[in-house]
């Protein structure tokens, strides 16, 4: 049986649009692979040839523009990222999880909505504005409070990054607590447990994985953050000995030096190698968080 002309035309149009939907549907995969491919491609020449991985990972000598003796040791940059991230997490994890527990278990419903809106707005503040706050207000505050000569330090960057990663920890952490069945709470309360005992003995163990995922996503955000740490942590490439030392992170190095490195030079390519390293770290962290969350959903 032949379809009438009008139906055939519609059928063709429908097949076209469905093909388009399918292509867009898998586009995210293409983009993730595309990002990995192109970042690798720009750095490949250097990465698989002239780069000494030993030096890259174990040396603190970062002299990419030296005339006679160029060296590409990224250890100080890795230490910079690690120190700022660690401090940020030391602040953000207790406060973020505390706030998640408050919102989920103690908060009156009316206050809860308002609180979530504030958290969402906090998450929306652009990183360059955070950087500006770090550079101006926090800088002066740290100099005044701790009587140190410069305020653009691990401490400054850590506090700013903590404020930036708290919203994600709160929202994912709250989801994790909400996912604990109410029957758990009811059973504990029926035994006479106070709210705090329910939280400490029942909810935290039950929601352990989800809270871990929340922390991991916070770490992912902190490691990948660029503008805020570029502006707030100062610019000295060295391994920090305390929170009042200036450092430079992996991300900030790319942002600060890519503009001056001649295209395809070794310096330019080593920045792409750092990009590959960052992509790998955040990919692993996010993958781990995602698998943990999936694992919870299947239970």
């Amino acid at each position, binding site marked *: 049986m032949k379809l009438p002309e009008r139906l055939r035309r519609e059928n063709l149009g429908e097949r076209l649009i469905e093909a388009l939907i399918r292509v867009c549907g898998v586009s995210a995969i293409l983009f993730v692979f595309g990002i990995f491919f192109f970042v690798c491609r720009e750095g490949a020449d250097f990465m698989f040839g002239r780069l000494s991985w030993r030096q890259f990972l174990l040396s603190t000598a970062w002299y990419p523009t030296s005339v006679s003796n160029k060296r590409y040791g990224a250890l100080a940059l890795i230490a910079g990222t690690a120190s700022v991230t660690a401090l940020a997490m030391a602040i953000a994890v207790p406060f973020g999880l505390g706030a998640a527990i408050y919102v989920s278990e103690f908060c009156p419903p009316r206050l809860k909505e308002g609180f979530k809106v504030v958290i969402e707005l906090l998450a929306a503040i652009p990183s360059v504005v955070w950087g500006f706050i770090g550079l101006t*207000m926090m800088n002066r505050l740290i100099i005044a409070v701790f009587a140190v000569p410069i305020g653009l330090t691990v401490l400054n960057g850590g506090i700013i990054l903590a404020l930036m990663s708290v919203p994600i920890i709160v929202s994912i952490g709250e989801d994790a607590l909400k996912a604990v069945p109410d029957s758990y709470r009811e059973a504990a309360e029926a035994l006479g447990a106070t709210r705090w005992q329910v939280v400490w003995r029942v909810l935290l163990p039950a929601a352990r994985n989800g809270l871990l995922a929340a922390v991991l996503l916070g770490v992912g955000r902190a490691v990948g953050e660029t503008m805020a740490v570029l502006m707030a942590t100062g610019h000295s490439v060295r391994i920090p000995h305390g929170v009042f030392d200036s450092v430079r992170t992996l*991300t900030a190095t790319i942002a600060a030096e890519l503009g001056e490195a001649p295209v395809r030079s070794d310096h330019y390519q080593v920045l792409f190698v750092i990009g590959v390293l960052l992509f790998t770290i955040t990919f692993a962290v996010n993958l781990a968080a995602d698998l943990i969350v999936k694992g919870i959903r299947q239970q």
Partner: protein
Amino acid sequence: MTSPTEAAAARVFAETAQGRRNRLAETAARTVFLLMSVVMIVPLLVTVGALVYKALPALSLDFLLTNPSRGMRAGGIWAPFLGSLYLVVISLLIAAPIGVLAAVYLNEYARDTWLTRLTNLAVVNLAGVPSIVHALFGLGAFVLFAGIGRSVLAASLTLAIMTLPVIIASTKEALGAVPMAFREACWNVGATRWQTIRSIVLPNSISGILTGIILQVSRAAGETAPIMFTGAVFYKAIPEGDLFAYGLFDQCMALSMHLFTISTQVPNVPEAVSYGTAVVLLGTVLSVNALAIALRYYLRSHQRW
């Protein structure tokens, strides 16, 4: 004077040491968690307040409509503001169709196969890629490989890919909220899959999709790193008041990049100018975001099913 029964009752119902400890622990926990929540919010409000206070002398309509002058130490933010507008609009035009169609695929077509799982995983990871890595990708893929050069288009493409997960996630949520019965009713009268989507699913989820699009705008307007090496420049003079001053293949200024420039690269910028720029950027992003939140609340209160 209490009767013996009352005294006995008082003894039975008197607080035990254990009960007292529990009550104190309860109060302490509640207070500590409340404080932890407040500690995050109060500095934020103080900071934003201080930003606005210091920016007040600069803020005026003229500030928005004049170009930066005297080596960016005076004048307004017209060129960067218009540049940001271009980047946001063009990246939205690219990201919105792809994102919405991708969400339609994931929610309406995809079965639970390895490909679907891989796609979902890719969306999550795309959202987690650091912004500076997006910048490297944009530089390698669009500026150099595709030969577009540093331009509004290359920067917008980079921003579009970066913000795609925002649109996909909220569109998926909006589509998922449309009851299955709506679709079944439509199929039962003989509509095809696409006809159902076009005439039933999309109209019923349009406001949720809109929320996602607004969130994309807020995200794209604030990003700095992805546009630094793909199209945004330190300075470029354009005619004031001309809305079509930038071409697709021109470089442009951008508000976020401008804030970075005047606060780190240019010495002796008057406080009012840099704070003013920060407040305009922050205000734009937060008000767009508040719009999305308001829309979401409106939707929830007017839900018809």
